[in-house]
Each structure stands twice: as C-alpha cells, then as structure tokens.
C-alpha cells in the first residue's frame, strides 16, 4: 500500500516509519528492512499507508514531519545516552533502537506529564488511523487494493455499489426483562 516515493529525506521517512511501526507493528518488507522492526505478523501501520496519510495535506501533520523526525531522533539519542546504549550509525537513532526500546520511548513521550505529549499522540493517532480505517484512501478502493488493516480487523466489505447494508442484523427476540420503571414512551421514569 505504500507508494514508491522518491523522498528527498530518507532519514525522515525511516524515522516516521519506525514510529508508526511501534504503534501498529508489522512484518518486515525485506530481510534488511530496518524501519519496520518485524515485531508482529502481517502488515502494520507502515504497510497500511501511515506515511501517505501523514503526508496528506488535509491531515495537518505534513508540515511538522521534518521537525517531528528530528525531535524523535534527538529523544532517541538522549534515551540511549541515559541508558548507556550504543546506537548503530547506519540508520537514524530512533530506528537504531530495538522494538522494546522504541516502545519504551514512545510510552515516555506520550505520558500525561510529557510537555510534547500532544504532538506524539497526534502522530500515534494518525498511524493508527492508517491501519484501521485507511483514511488516505477511499474505503472502497482500500478494499479493492487489499488494505492490510481493514482486512486484519475483519471490517465487512460493502455491497457492489460501495455501500454497506446488513439485511441480517438481529437475534430477533427479547433478551432481557425491561426495567420496571419504563414509561409507555420507552424512557426511564
């Protein structure tokens, strides 16, 4: 689902991908994939299109992605330094962290008392939205393309006209006693 972007800044893309993969983890695209940690089977937020959604002009985060990537890597360096971790120079600092370390850092950044919480929560929100609702794609198109998130959560497919209808929807019988103080309008007394 991830379009082939010739991004001028691969550091930014890898860093944001690694963040999105921490929110909804997925399997590596290739054995040498570094951004995706491979912590869970199936596609995760990255395969679901998190970068495309974050870069969508309507979302509001696109102008901030450069700064977010820089800040995230600064936090990763600080996190590593405090814990005596030596980071691999081949990839951005956040990407160099293990999945467990990325997870721990994201927990710190999104904790209620963290001064930058709001922007990291926003990044997490969009990462999650890419996976469970494919908000960068028309939902019908997302199904046609086999969107990994919609398929993973088991979202039912639409009718052929792209509209959802469920003719079968009810167990069809009374399943509990009504509250004794229900009025004839169906409201509580």
């Amino acid at each position: 689902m991830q379009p082939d972007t010739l991004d001028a800044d691969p550091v930014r893309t890898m860093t944001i991908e690694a963040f999105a993969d921490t929110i909804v983890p997925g399997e590596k695209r290739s054995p040498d994939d570094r951004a995706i940690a491979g912590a869970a089977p199936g596609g995760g937020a990255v395969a679901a299109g998190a970068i495309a959604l974050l870069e969508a002009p309507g979302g509001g985060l696109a102008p901030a992605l450069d700064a977010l990537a820089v800040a995230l890597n600064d936090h990763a360096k600080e996190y590593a330094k405090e814990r005596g971790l030596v980071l691999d120079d081949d990839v951005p600092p956040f990407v160099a962290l293990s999945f467990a370390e990325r997870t721990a850092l994201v927990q710190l950044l999104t904790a209620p008392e963290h001064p930058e919480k709001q922007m990291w929560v926003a990044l997490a929100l969009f990462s999650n939205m890419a996976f469970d609702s494919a908000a960068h794609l028309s939902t019908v198109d997302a199904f046609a393309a086999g969107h990994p998130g919609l398929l993973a959560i088991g979202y039912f497919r639409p009718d052929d006209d792209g509209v959802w209808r469920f003719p079968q929807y009810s167990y069809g019988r009374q399943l509990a006693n009504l509250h004794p103080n229900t009025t004839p309008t169906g409201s509580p007394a």
Partner: protein
Amino acid sequence: MTATESTDVVVIGSGFGGAIAAYHLAAGGARVVVLERGPWLTAEEFDHDFLLGSSYTRIFDFVIGDGMSVLGGNCVGGGSVVFFATMPRAPRFVFERRGSIGRRLWPAAISRDTLDPWYDRVAEALPVRPTPWERVPYAGGLFAAACAHAGHTANPAPSAIDLDECTNCNWMIAGCRFDAKRSLLLNYLPAAIAHGAEIRPKHEVQSLSRNDDGGYRVHYRLVDDLDYRVLHDSGAIDAKIVVLAAGAGATPVILRRSEPQLGPMPYAVGRYFSGNGERLNTAVFDEDRVREVLGLTRDGGQAYAAYQIGRGPTVTNWDWLDGSLPEYERFSLEQLYFPPGLGTILAQVPDATGPTWFGVQKKEMLLRWQSWLTIFTMSEDDNEGVFGPPPETGNAHRLSQQMLGNGPLRYRPTANTLRGWSLSDAAVKDILERDGLARVMPWTNDLVGAYTVHPLASCRIGDDPATSALDDGHELRGHPGIFVTDGSAVPCALTVNPAMTIAALAERAMPGIVRALQERGVPVRYGAPSPDGETAARRGVARAG
C-alpha cells in the same frame, strides 16, 4: 457606505437549539436568518467512506482540550446529523440534582412533569419511537443477554430512526445516506425554510455587538469549502433578537469573545461545563462463551462477531438510574458502536503486559475487532469544565483541514466524577466478564483527556444568578434579547443521551422568545403545529400552559 443587512432574528447554529427556534419563529411570522458554521449536505452526499475529506470529516468536529475532548456536529442540522438518534427522556431525579452548589440546579419551573409536554412535542416532530426487540441489532442483543445473565434488566432505547429505511450500516456518524435517521434535515429545518427562514452554511459567527436601537449585530466569517482552517470574507447582520445555539463547545466562546463589545458576561458563561459524565469501556468477547453461556447464534452460525452491524446504541441498562442512590452514583450503561479511526486508539488491552493502547498486544486486540462491544457510561459529573480565553476565531485552533483541532476547554474531574466512573466501570466489568464472556477495559484518559459526545451546561439556565448564565426563559442575564437554546443551557449531566432534553428545553423556550419579539414590535405569534402538521402535542402544551 453599504447598509448592514437586517432581520428580526438571527439564529446561530442549526442543531436542535437552532432548528427548533428557526421553525417556530419563522412559522410565527418573523424574518429568520440561520448562520451555520458547517456545510449543508443532503443524503446522497453522506459517504460511506473513511477518506479524509469525505462527509465523515466534513460534518464532524473533534476538539481536543486540556483534560476533555469534545465531539460534535459541524453542519446544517448540527448534532442531529452525526448523532446516533437515541432519545430517552431524562429520569425524574436528574431535575432534583444539587451538584456542588448546595441548591437545586434546575430552575424551579422545570421538572420532569413540566417538561414532559415539551418532550411530547419533540417526539411527535421527529418522530421518536420505542424500539421493538425484534429490530435490535446483534450488539444490542448481546448486551441485553449479558445484562439478563447478570441479573439485570435491559431496555431497547427510544430512537429517532425510521427502522423500515435503516440498513444497519453503522455509518450514521458520517450522516445517514438513507434518510432513515430522522435528523433535523427532515423535519424542523425544511419546515422552517417553507416558512421563509434562510439558512446560510459556512458562516462562522465570531462575535456579537450591541446596536443603539437595543438590537444586536452578528459578526461572521465565511469558512472555506474544503479547508476549514481558511476563513474568507467577513460580514454582519443586524437583528432584534439573537438565538445562540452554536453548541456547548462554541456558544460560550462566542459570548466571551463578544465581551469587549457587549460588556461583562454572567460568571457562568464558559463555566460549569459538563461532559455528561461520559466514559467508555471496550469489551472483547469470547465467541465460544457467548454461544455456551448466553445461547446466542446468528445467521451463518456465528455467536456474535458483528460489532460493525447496527445503528449505534440500541440497548441500555437503567438499573443504576435509581433516585434513591446518592448523587454521583447514578448512571446508565448503553451498548455503543464507535467506528474505526477515532474509535479504536483509546481502547485499552485487557491484561496488557506492555503498553495498553498501542503495540503488539493492541494489534492482537484489533484483530478481534468484530468481537468488540463498547459500553457507554453516562453519569453525573461535577460541572467542572472551564473555558480559557477564546482562540482567534471559531472555538478551536484547527489542526487538520477538517475535524481535528485544539480548543480552550479545561477539565479536571473531581472525586465525585471519578467515583461515578469507577462505579460504572465496576458494573460493566461485573456484567460482561461474568462466566468468562469477555474481558473489559475502560478507554484511556491519558491521551486526549476525558471525552464527551454530549457537551453540556457551559451557559446554563438556573434561578441563581451567581451560578447560571440564563434565566429560566433562556435569556442571557444582563443582555436582553440574547437567548441560548442549545446543550449549553442544560444545567447538568443527565445520565442519559441529552438530545431529547436539549430539544424539549428549546421547544419550551419558544413562547418566551416570541413574546420578546412582540415586545420589540415584530408581528409574530406562537402556536405552530408539528413540522409535518400534527397538532396533538401542541394541544398537550396548551393544556399544560
């Protein structure tokens, strides 16, 4: 110099409070202009689509505050277009609440008995009807069966949905493309237009000022069609009377911004906000246990696995709506659907060993999404929300081109509110985890604070000028001719879905607003029938009056 346009009444907002006013005042003979911030969509424009820019994001606002996020409508028809159309009346004890002010919160003139004839008017107008069991979707049936298994009652809730037209698609938060949901687009608003009311979408009111003749000038900006962060030309309309119904998240902001022109606002403007005591729990069901313990099977032989099917909340538990319980310990529990996107990120993993809302275990929970059931608590909070200084325009600093923004509301739940949430969490857990049916966790409040889809009370009615912004006729204290008829006028949390009460209060306020217009020389009268011409409820109101 161009003369400023003038009319008898400007109505700000077109949700329940605005649409009901527009209809009655136009039908009574007044010239009415409705200014609505959001777009005007009709059934065929309500998309089944999560794509940014579809109706899902165009007509719906999610404003993140400090400790409280508010979800609400942003379109012609307001909340009625995006809501789930569940419309119970508030229980009797709610009208006797004292909250933390040591006296009855509601005006002496209002009780369940005095409001019932006005509830009847709304029920007739939309209409609102009881839901039969055989039309309850699987998710509601599952909740009912779990309640019964735990020794509790459960009720299909009255609703404003035409069940013969409904496809149970569960897209109603993006507007109903089948016109099955009886939103205001199908009753009060077309009736208002038929009587000459003008509705102007994409007009965001910023402030009011006072004219020398005692009327008001309403100042607005035009909102861009696509990118709501962009505002275009400004304009103004003069009116003898202003009906403010921009919603509890916006009405006090407009009034606060107007303070330099209008003079001091009552203390309660922008204070005493209530989130209706709302709280969510998400359960993940064990399909085998649903079959074995509750004996449920559906078409295709599955037990449940049907979270997506239905029409929002349909079944509710009222066992804790007991007036003999102490205040803050009463709540209703309602089975609810929340769509992906906004509806999953805050759900927490039961028994998590790592992070509760993201990561490997959260993904595993998402894979069982069709076996989820969300339970919605509506309890008695402590009216602890306070609005900070207004943003430059509107009621939020918009982050995305649509839907998402940051607003000035601050909310720190008191021990009373937290106690109600804790009791309701325990009740949900007791019902749904019994005999291994499900595992349950409340949504996290750590990310965007608490949240509400039913903002209330930020400009409330009351008898005490120190703790209410409006008198019992909904007129703003100290500012004659400004009336507030939206959810901000409701004094406190209602323990049930508030749309029916907001609408009934708006209906009740109309004769007084008509009198205010008459006093200003407008030839208007009160007494329009229901929007479709029915008159039974009008007779009921006349008898009560």
